[in-house]
């Protein structure tokens, strides 16, 4: 099943026409770069207190943060995928992994190009991965499950922003192109997680299986937390950025938005038995 799908996805990747260079502009001023309803503090008094110009400025920095999250996520993904290329368990789908890697590399040039041109750099990644021991197959299950979580969340943003004609055309185009490729990556990622879980989880102790579910729930929460970045608020000129980030993340409007945007992510993780 996995092999057959990977072959189909490889064919679709190969059919993808060469894309023209993105329509870069000289400056990115006076435009919406994130849909207002997707902005981390939308619905809070701190948002309502901003003028439209200030809201647009925040929308730019939120976009730069979103693209930075994509860069950090895709870099970790590429490292992990490259390490697994031709491993016995995934050797049959190595051909598609090559396409996957090539596409991720191209995505990073879009995100990096935007951040370096217009935001003067890339917002820092505060995630740290510490060495630990794993049950057989657990590290691979967690790696692909984390990739799936990261990609499902960003894809929900991509889909909405690709269609939002209030946004700058360049931003829409980056979101559109990314979604186009991610739909294939998500199909593959879901099947890999399913297959690896089926192969390994039954040999694990109940404690290990529960540990994986606890970890994925915490990873999902930590993924969302990165959308509330005090560096963004600082650059947008907002007061008390750390406090604002903490309060916004815990606020009822943000929780409702994460539930709504993340509904597909949660549903898929539950179907895969990765979330209780």
């Amino acid at each position, binding site marked *: 099943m996995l092999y057959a799908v990977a072959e189909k996805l490889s064919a679709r990747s190969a059919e993808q026409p060469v894309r023209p260079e993105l329509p870069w502009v000289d400056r990115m001023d006076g435009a919406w770069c994130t849909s207002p309803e997707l902005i981390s503090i939308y619905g809070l008094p701190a948002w309502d207190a901003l003028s439209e110009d200030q809201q647009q400025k925040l929308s730019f920095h939120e976009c730069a943060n979103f693209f930075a999250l994509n860069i950090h996520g895709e870099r970790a993904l590429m490292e992990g995928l490259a390490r697994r290329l031709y491993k016995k368990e995934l050797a049959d789908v190595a051909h598609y992994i090559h396409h996957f890697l090539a596409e991720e590399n191209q995505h990073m040039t879009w995100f990096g190009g935007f951040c370096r041109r217009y935001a003067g750099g890339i917002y*820092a*990644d*505060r*995630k*740290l*991965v*510490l*060495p*630990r021991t794993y049950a057989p197959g657990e590290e691979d299950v967690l790696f692909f499950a984390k990739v799936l979580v990261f990609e499902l969340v960003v894809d929900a943003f991509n889909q909405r922003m690709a269609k939002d004609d209030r946004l700058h055309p360049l931003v829409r185009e980056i979101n559109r192109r990314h979604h186009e490729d991610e739909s294939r990556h998500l199909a593959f990622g879901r099947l890999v997680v399913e297959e690896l879980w089926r192969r390994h989880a039954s040999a694990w102790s109940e404690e290990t299986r529960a540990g994986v579910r606890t*970890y994925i729930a*915490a*990873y999902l*929460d*930590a993924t969302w*937390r*990165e959308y509330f970045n*005090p*560096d963004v608020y600082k650059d947008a000129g907002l007061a008390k950025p*750390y*406090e604002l*980030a*903490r309060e916004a993340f815990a606020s009822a409007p943000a929780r409702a938005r994460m539930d709504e945007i993340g509904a597909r992510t949660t549903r898929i993780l539950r179907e895969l038995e990765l979330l209780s």
Partner: protein
Amino acid sequence: MSRKDRLRAWIVSNGHRVDSSTLADDTPLLEQRILTSLQLAELLLFLEELRERPVDLEGITGSSFRDLRSMVAAFLPEEAHAS
């Protein structure tokens, strides 16, 4: 409350299986899974807020978070000298 005490309070409030009576300066936080790697990003944000300046993230490793004493030395050096 000193910044070290605020950090101690954060660990007690967010850590697993720990309370203020059991948390010593050299309690191994990662080894005993009192803190997990997924909590370190949130902890870094708290440390930045405490020290009122960003942390240079390049070169940060798990050893900076080994215990309360290591964290103070790595992120709040003024407190380390004061105590």
